[in-house]
């Protein structure tokens, strides 16, 4: 059985999906994140609060997610953050 992903890994995976596809629709991101809809909503809310992602609505009222500068920096420094969190048991 696959190991359950740590919270930090889930956040990394969501942000990576957004970065790879640049602007991604909520449904596609939900599939890519491999989370239940309820968990997905929790994570997206957290990422919005932390200012890692933004939602843009186009003229057809369609929503897409994109990364903020902070979200990009998180991905760039992910290894350092993960190393710190794991070594201090946080």
């Amino acid at each position: 059985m696959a190991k359950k992903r740590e919270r930090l890994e889930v956040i990394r995976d969501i942000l990576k999906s957004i970065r790879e596809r640049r602007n991604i629709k909520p449904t596609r991101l939900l599939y890519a994140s491999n989370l239940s809809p309820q968990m997905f909503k929790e994570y997206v809310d957290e990422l919005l609060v932390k200012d890692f992602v933004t939602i843009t609505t186009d003229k057809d009222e369609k929503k897409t997610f994109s990364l903020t500068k902070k979200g990009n920096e998180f991905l760039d420094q992910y290894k350092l953050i993960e190393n710190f969190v794991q070594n201090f048991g946080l």
Partner: protein
Amino acid sequence: MDIYSFILGNKETFKIIYAAIIVFTCLLIVLKTNKLFQLSSHSGIRYFRNAFLFYGIAFFVRYFLVFTDIFGSIITPLFEFFIIMGGFFLTYSLLSKRLNLKFYYSSLLNPIISIFYLFAIILVLFDIILKTSNFMFLSQIVLFVVSSSISYINYKEAGSKNKFLKFYFSAMILILLAWILNFFVFLLFGGERSILINVYILNLVFFLIFLYGVIKITKN
């Protein structure tokens, strides 16, 4: 002249050096971890940073503000308050991952931290009323028993993967021993200074272990 007599003979100088090392250590830890928090918005890193911020303030108040006449008799209650809050923050930083609580905008003023403030104030008030420091000592012993247990579980779960967890657990045991020793020195020996030197050494080692870990892991 043995080392204890030498230190006791120059105790004021040693106290200042001791406090300066701890305040400087805390400052470095806060600056390094604040950078990581700005990048990650990780709750555990945030409360870990706050713990050392409060420890740094506590030692600054206790050993440096004492030279000013501004705070007078409230120096000890202030020191106790910041030390108790530091303990709460450090324990909470270890618990936050397991509790998986909501992310708050402020880490200094939110419902959970307000409960910690309330507890800290109550404990300090008890100490003031009963003219003792026992409530601070006991609160720290309880908090570090909890923190030591969590850090032991973290160490066992990670195996040999994350090497610093062993140091983290050792640091927790050291500080727990320091608080237990501190408590008994005041309870049984009326604050006997030669025994208290060992408490100061344990405290120093605790802070230096954390500084070592933070610098080592964030150096890249």
